[in-house]
């Protein structure tokens, strides 16, 4: 059963930036693009676990700060030629507020 939860105001995330949302021990990177789209990925790069929230956001991608892999925000997957995906979480934007589905998050964090 989904468990949509109001997390924060979209303006608390810098445009072309990210915030870290912590649920238990799980860090989720919540990204905002230039066009105010939001995306949620586990804050672990599929390469060697770098914190994606700390990368540079461009278009609908983020570049990992550790070794420059490019990760697609909508799928969590690395742009070819690199391989691997960061886990994505259901997220939505309603009336300027960012909502996360914590049922999915709790399942992973457990």
């Amino acid at each position, binding site marked *: 059963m989904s468990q949509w939860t109001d997390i924060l105001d979209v303006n608390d995330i810098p445009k*072309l930036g990210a915030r870290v949302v912590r649920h238990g021990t799980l860090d989720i990177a919540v990204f905002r693009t230039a066009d105010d789209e939001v995306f949620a990925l586990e804050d672990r790069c599929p390469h060697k676990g770098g914190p994606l929230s700390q990368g540079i*956001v461009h278009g609908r991608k983020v570049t990992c700060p550790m070794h420059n892999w490019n990760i697609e925000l909508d799928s969590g997957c690395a742009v070819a030629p690199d391989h691997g995906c960061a886990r994505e979480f259901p997220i939505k934007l309603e009336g300027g507020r960012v909502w996360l589905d*914590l049922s999915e998050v709790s399942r992973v964090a457990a």
Partner: protein
Amino acid sequence: MDMSTPMGQGPKMKLVMVGNGMAGVRTLEELLKLAPDLYDITVFGAEPHPNYNRILLSPGLAGEQTVDDIVLNPLDWYNDNNITLHLGKKVVKIDRTARAVEADDGTRAEYDRLLLATGSNPFILPVPGADLEGVISFRDIADVDAMIRASSQYRHAVVIGGGLLGLEAANGLMKRGMEVSVVHIGPWLMERQLDEPAARLLQKSLEEKGMKFLLQKQTAELVQGESGRVAAIKFKDGDSAPADLVVMAVGIRPNTELAESSGLHCNRGIVVNDTMQTFDPRIYSIGECAAHRGIAYGLVAPLFEQAKVCANHLAHYGIGRYQGSVTSTKLKVTGIDLFSAGDFMGSEGTEAILYSDPIGGVYKKLVIKDNKLVGGVMYGDTVDGAWYFSLLRDGKDVTELRDHLMFGQDHCGNLGHQGINKAATMTDDMEVCGCNGVCKGDIVKAIREKGLFTLEDVRKHTKASSSCGSCTGLVEQILAVTAGGDYYAAPKTKSMCGCTDHTHEAVREAIRQNKLLTIPQVMTFMEWRTPNGCASCRPALNYYLISTWPGEAEDDPQSRFINERAHANIQRDGTYSVIPRMWGGQTTPAELRRIADVAEKYAIPSVKVTGGQRIDLLGVKKEDLPKVWADLDMPSGHAYGKALRTVKTCVGSEWCRFGTQDSTQMGIDLEKVFFKMWAPHKVKLAVSGCPRNCAEVAIKDVGIIGVDSGWEIYVGGNGGIKTEVAQFLVKVKTPDEVLEYSGAFLQLYREEARYLDRTVHYLERVGLDYVKKKILDDHEGRRALYERLLFALSVERDPWVERAKEGKLKHEFETVAA
């Protein structure tokens, strides 16, 4: 909506490609990446094979690769991409009014866009007997099959043509057990790539392998034997030689037959513009058949450049122009190392540096004009080929390197490869790229499995050679051995990144000329092709803006690499390090006490003295950073930034019995004046109190040495992957002059260097003489530079103070609980 049609515009457009070769198929690959659903694609190929790597025909002939090994796009690839493939069908007619092509068996296909990639034809000497059985050329799989068959039945092979292709054919036939003679009209081999001394060495080593040469011989006739097959070759001077197989390798001609018969403008190739379009705007042409600005290229690398541009236009992106390529050559004969590029013969106004060791079989010649490398030939030792080629292409000023240039990059300071410089002798588990930990086996695997061709591809896939670049030569060798051939080639100008075709210089100029103040403004003005750039251009643009318009352009934290956004260095475990500034390496008991307290209070796991004479607190949690800074109450050390790092000093005349000047105070002054200085890359300074040089100034961006009568200033040193010794700039008398001259140099670097170039790279590019002109000869100019630096620094604030005490950008350091 029906997703198979683009945005509901009705049926897909039809793209027909004639010629199923390397350039054409590469264009389709690029196109499918950009616009997978735009076209219904139909391909005609005269050969009965799917696209294969023509370059590897030579190793194939020599028995080092099989035909299956060299297929690039198996039939499945065409299937998977819904490409209609007509193999073994030669297109004989283009009906430009009806927009359709017709093949020799009557197959017709209509097009909205037509791509001609018909390659070239081998040139056949018009001599009697040229059409006899046993007389072939060296162009495709059929030719190689014919040669392999002949080699098992006959003995005498004659190759006409002592160029690249001819020698590779001769080598292959010899390996297949034939007795091979090479007939060549010129006075030496490969005269289009080699000068005489290099060619003689080549000839000697091929002769040692058993090849025979008939130089300066003109073929008069090929003579028929009793069986009806060719039996001998006759020359104009009356000599003759037995020949059961004759391979003609005397050059190629762009294959324009089809284009010409349909009325397209051709002139030594199908004439195309910078977007690879022919005179009929619906028809494009690329590859060896196309003549771009009068040149039909005959090597793969430039053709792939063309393919990229052509695909971009076919995909309706309409961005990118092909502006021609510089190429270089290597010969693919195992055991022979040969490299040539540019104006290797030399001409009016050039001078040559020579190295010759006939006994060791090594010969090198570098041709220099106006202090720049314009060409070179290497035989026997080609490890540095790639390096020379990049110097040549970038037009770097080599004045400073001149004395060492001949001895290669290693000699110009290069660590990390344990002296290994021959890729062939390496085992698969040996490391090639020390920066990214990539072994030879990884690279070979990626080249094979992913079908890589260029250095860029290998960099992208394996990360090898993508950092410091000192293993580039090795990677290129591995590429040559594995993929065959040589793929060096590059556009004539280097764009900033994939988001634009503009160079760093052009972008800076536009920012200055048009007073652009924000990144979006630059991107709109310069027509960036991505909506907001990438992780490589955004930090560069941010720097160019704030350094060009200090106080007016606003810093954009989201365009800074994490270290410069968090103002601390991210570590491999995601924690951060904090290095507070200690002016000139001097500290006080009170500061040390605060550092100790902070380390305990925030349970910081590691406290280390850095090589920059200060203290590093490692393992700080991001959330704690503002509190740690507040408690430390010390200035930011900028150890995380492309900025002024440390000013290392020795104890100097205050205490040292040798000291001639107060180096510590000089260092403190320099550090205080240049504090908060952002730069294209990190900047490190040092000051020693006498020539004993305890502060190691020779490897700093600016190094100062105190002498009896004043101070010596050195610039452009670097202690990194490649050690570079700083060069003497000037000697001055007073500390104020030290500040002004050093400051002016740093400002020049800040204004003119490309982002991520260290001072040494900048100096390599412009030359020390230029810097001397600007700083020593032009007094007004020097003072103006220094003034501009001081102004820029006056508007900068200490980022730690802003964040620790004024709450700037708080969100950066807070996590949200959920």
